[in-house]
């Protein structure tokens, strides 16, 4: 069960059991985005406040599997209080990590759809920048679960786009 332990690292289970920044911020002043995984019915609700180009607050609602919940919780911790530019960089780095290994076709994202070419060499994904998020690296070995991991990130990305 080595693979399984790599997927369900302790830090992931911890975030699943005790999600950080759980709940919804009042709208307004917060901005609200919903994410949706049609395959399994997972839903995520991201509410966030951007002040002075900084993600000053964020909360996560919705339901889902351990991977989608832990990823959302980890995300919220990673981006809270960070400048929007840095958050966008993090989103890119995270999504690159989620797409580097999995496709034999090289340039398809979690849906097998094509994406903008990311770093071709896994080494180029700066894991240092990811911090705790690197714990989600095990997910790329489980292609079906990549959608779970990226669900909240796509919602966040959409939210930032809508706000800018």
């Amino acid at each position, binding site marked *: *069960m080595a*693979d*399984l332990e790599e*997927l*369900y690292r302790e830090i992931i*289970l911890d975030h*699943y*059991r005790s999600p950080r920044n759980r709940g919804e911020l009042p709208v307004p002043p917060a901005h609200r985005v919903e994410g949706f995984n049609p*395959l*399994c*019915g*997972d*839903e995520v609700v991201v509410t966030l406040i951007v002040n002075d180009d900084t993600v000053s607050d964020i909360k996560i609602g919705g*339901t*889902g*599997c*351990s*991977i989608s919940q832990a990823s959302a919780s980890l995300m919220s911790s990673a981006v809270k209080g960070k400048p929007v530019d840095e958050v966008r960089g993090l989103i890119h780095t995270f999504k690159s990590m989620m797409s580097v290994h999995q496709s034999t076709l090289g340039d398809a994202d979690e849906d097998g759809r094509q994406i903008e070419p990311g770093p071709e060499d896994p080494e180029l994904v700066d894991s240092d920048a990811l911090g705790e998020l690197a714990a989600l690296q095990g997910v790329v070995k*489980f292609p079906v*679960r990549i959608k*779970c991991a990226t669900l909240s990130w796509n919602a966040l990305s959409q939210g930032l786009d809508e706000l800018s």
Partner: protein
Amino acid sequence: MDMTDGAMTVDDVEVASGYLDVEKLRRDFPILAERVHDRRIVYLDSAATSLTPRPVIDAISKYYETTHANVHRGVYATAEEATRLYEEARIKVGRFIGATRPGEEVVFTKNATEALNLIASSWGHANLKENDVVVLTEMEHHSNIVPWIMLSEELGIELRYVPIDGSGRLDLSNFDEFCDGAKLVCVSAMSNVLGTINPITEMSKVAHDHGALVVVDGAQSVPHLPVDIQELGADFLAFSGHKMMGPTGIGVLWANATILEAMPPFLGGGGMILDVKPEKFLPADPPDRFEAGTPPIAEAVGLAAAVDYLQSIGMGQIRSHERSLTAFALESIGEKLGDDCRIFGPPAGDDRGGVMSFSYRDVHAHDIAQVLDQYGVCVRPGHHCAKPLMRKLGVAATARASIALYNSEDDINVLIEGLVEAGRLFANA
């Protein structure tokens, strides 16, 4: 068991014989010799698609190797043979479900979903108008819901959903009222989530008394139960090849000849016409009228081989095996996992098929399936294309284990072993 006892009824044989010789049958399925994560495959996802036995795979290969040609218009030897095989498949499939005029009443589609859309589009447009009522049930698959929603958006028809009760059976206490003024009743013969086997024969009687026609979604029943359309009293029956040990890419619509004869075309193109002029065309008779373009020829050949395979074992025997194994599974899970595991649907019995959806503690279905995969166990997490039913059950997703003739008690034991590990891993989650 005393097979010489001439007084045994079919029911006796089923109960007495209990299980099929699974060890022997498993050898017919090449995929079961594969290993995943260094374990044997415990395939419990037959409700999504069944595994494919050797004779079906070989029939398809042999067709391409010796006969392949387009049907219907060729004079040369292989084209004649391809046409013969294709039409023979139609008749074989029709007889399998008790059709009396299989050559006219069986339409090959790409899957059960297309068959249901064909009914909604062709029969629906010709027979339904604003405020007409179509009755569905709360346990329908999206493929027997969405076509009707699309039609209701277009024509303004009313959809009524027969509710389910606490045991996962249809609440038919006022089915009569549901049928009042209804033009059509659409119901699954067996639920792909709850395993419930619905009383189609009785429902058809009531529906017909109210002048409504009956559409039966047989995607789950045809592969697992003896099905006789005369007995069901249905007007339409839809099912899929890939769930009954046949190939992907083929489905079946059976409809009463008189009804089919009166239906307008569905898709237009080659093969479904008598004549075409620039501004108008004359449709062919059924079933050709509903088979536009080159049909799934190799798939029909494979489906015929699947029917032969199922019949060589016997649908009664298959049902008996699966009923026994379902009873074993429900009992074992209850014994070993207790209240931690909530299984949806009716208890084992005559109206319960081998589809078992469950939740386990509050481990998410996705995580259950992931852990089980490490044990070689194939179950499906999700909404199983039945979101209205999920909402009714108050869950976002379930894990679903579904059996077929190649499953044994061993498989259920491995399933339970895996569930225990999932529980351990997510303890206090």
